[in-house]
């Protein structure tokens, strides 16, 4: 797929996120919009997977430790063909497979249940150790994490353990958007110098623009090439990316747009889509 095609898909996913959240009347806006490029890169280029066979036993594993951003995953999965896009509008409703936070047993293709933060990386370790024993060391394990999530001690317990067992199949992708519920990450609990921290724990660290699809694809390729060490990709993203009035505003972390806001956001995203089409022509 060309970069232009991927960028158009990312914009489709962003529009789906807005529609889902408007219909659900609750949920997180900024994180999922900011992650749309990373999830497009994962589902449409990086991951070895089969939407028609979600439990294919040669698939790569994608763990979403930042479960509150799951609308982006649902939208990416629907666009990739896991299920009908119409189902997206059932998000957070009684009886839906699309729970407010992801539940593995509800929807095929989700690899774990998450929401409470900080537990994804250690599950990746268990999977990597298990797959090594199963003679499947080629299967890659990707874990997305929020930056606010790095406040959790469980993350650093896992960060210490993965290098001990040389788990080079693990790629952690930190969504470095600098916001969390109570404000900027550096005022809630300073994370910097984040690169130095991960390196000190024994990780191979890459820093990229997480809203640049090509950069995400290249970084994951580099992560696969690195042996003996797990890789942490610090992906700088713009929270609310693609919707002007949401970008960089931490107030949009945990709220959904109302009808008027959604209309405005969708109009902006359609304009963006037109721009992408014409730019690449």
């Amino acid at each position, binding site marked *: 797929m060309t970069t232009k095609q991927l960028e158009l898909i990312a914009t489709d996913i962003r529009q789906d996120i807005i529609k889902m959240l408007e219909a659900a009347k609750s949920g997180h806006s900024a994180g999922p919009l900011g992650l749309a490029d990373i999830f497009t890169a994962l589902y449409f280029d990086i991951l070895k997977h089969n939407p028609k066979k979600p439990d294919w036993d040669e698939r790569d594993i994608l763990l979403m430790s930042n479960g509150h951003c799951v609308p982006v995953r649902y939208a990416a999965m629907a666009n990739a063909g896991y299920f009908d896009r119409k189902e997206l509008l059932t998000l957070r409703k009684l009886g839906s497979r699309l729970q407010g936070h992801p*539940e*593995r*047993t509800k929807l095929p293709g989700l*690899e*774990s*249940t*998450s*929401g*409470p933060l*900080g*537990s994804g990386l*250690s*599950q*990746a*370790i*268990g*999977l*990597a*150790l*298990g*797959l090594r*024993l*199963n003679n499947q060391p080629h299967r890659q394990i990707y874990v997305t994490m929020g930056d606010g999530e790095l406040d959790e*001690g*469980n993350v650093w*317990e*896992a960060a*210490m*353990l993965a290098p001990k*067992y040389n788990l080079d199949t693990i790629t952690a992708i930190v969504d470095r958007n600098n916001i969390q519920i109570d404000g900027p990450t550096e005022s809630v609990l300073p994370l910097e110098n984040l690169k130095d921290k991960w390196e000190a724990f024994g990780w191979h660290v890459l820093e990229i623009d997480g809203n640049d699809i090509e950069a995400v694809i290249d970084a994951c390729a580099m992560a696969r090439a690195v042996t003996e060490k797990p890789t942490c990709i610090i992906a700088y993203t713009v929270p609310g990316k693609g919707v002007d009035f949401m970008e960089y505003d931490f107030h949009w972390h945990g709220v959904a747009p109302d009808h008027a806001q959604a209309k405005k956001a969708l109009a902006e995203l359609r304009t963006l889509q037109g721009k992408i089409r014409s730019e690449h022509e």
Partner: protein
Amino acid sequence: MSDTSSEPIRAGFGRGLVKAGQLDDNVVACCADLTGSVKMDAFQKEFPDRFFQIGVAEQNLVTVGAGLAAAGKVAFVSSYAAFMPGRCWEQIRTTICLNEQPVKLIGAHAGISVGPDGATHQMLEDIALMRALPNMVVLAPCDSIEAEKATLAMAKDKRPNYMRMAREATPIITDEKTPFQIGPAYVLEKGADVTLIATGTMTPQAVKAAELLYKDGIEAEVVHVPTIKPLDVKTILQSLKKTGCVVSAEEAQITGGLGSAVAEVIVDEGLAVPLIRIGMKDRFGESGDPEQLMRHFGLDAQHIRLAAHAAVERKK
């Protein structure tokens, strides 16, 4: 029944884990810097590639276990019960129970009989913590032989399991031929006057209490409950309907534990059956010699005996 020999319950777990490992290549084990204490050392020696040292990090311990289970492994994870499930309940709830990953949690050094280490290390709330979780199976074997059987049964069980075990040597009251499955309660002694329902280390005490009560002219029925959840309601009801009064006994808080489970059965069934609960009564323990502590906090055969007399009185 005799209590001529004794052994720590955890020793049976250690033997069972090695056997489970021999029977199934998928069995793996993780520990948080207490390998010898929790008796995972023999497994580590025999299967070094299937043993993972996690370090003093119990949140990581159980979540790595969830990941191993996701890869199809039968993951036994163990630490002291005060730390696991004590420190990592939310991870157990989300990544194991809600996520339906059949991790095998082994809580060692449970109960007041940990002794001199004191209240911080005497885990008394683990039954309540684990019993409240949907999908979780809660086990408390009564001796080392039953613990070995329980370990082998856990290795084949497809659900998340928690097993608690004590530090000190306790009487061996079962043998190789005694039946064990996850689920049933077992009637160890038959009697018509009072039911003694016990689990874990308190089961040998209940058996001893029944002997004392017999001399007092009271025939006690001893029901051993190695599976606290799901509870074998049928066996318990049969006994309660026969005897008309009951004493529960556990080396744990009476709040939320086996005694609470029995009280729930009585209420749900609308029975008018007096229940006296033996256990820690909403307080913490303290340092001391294990046997001294058990007596001090009323967790022995004599206290069960006195409670049984009181229960029989209340029937009248």
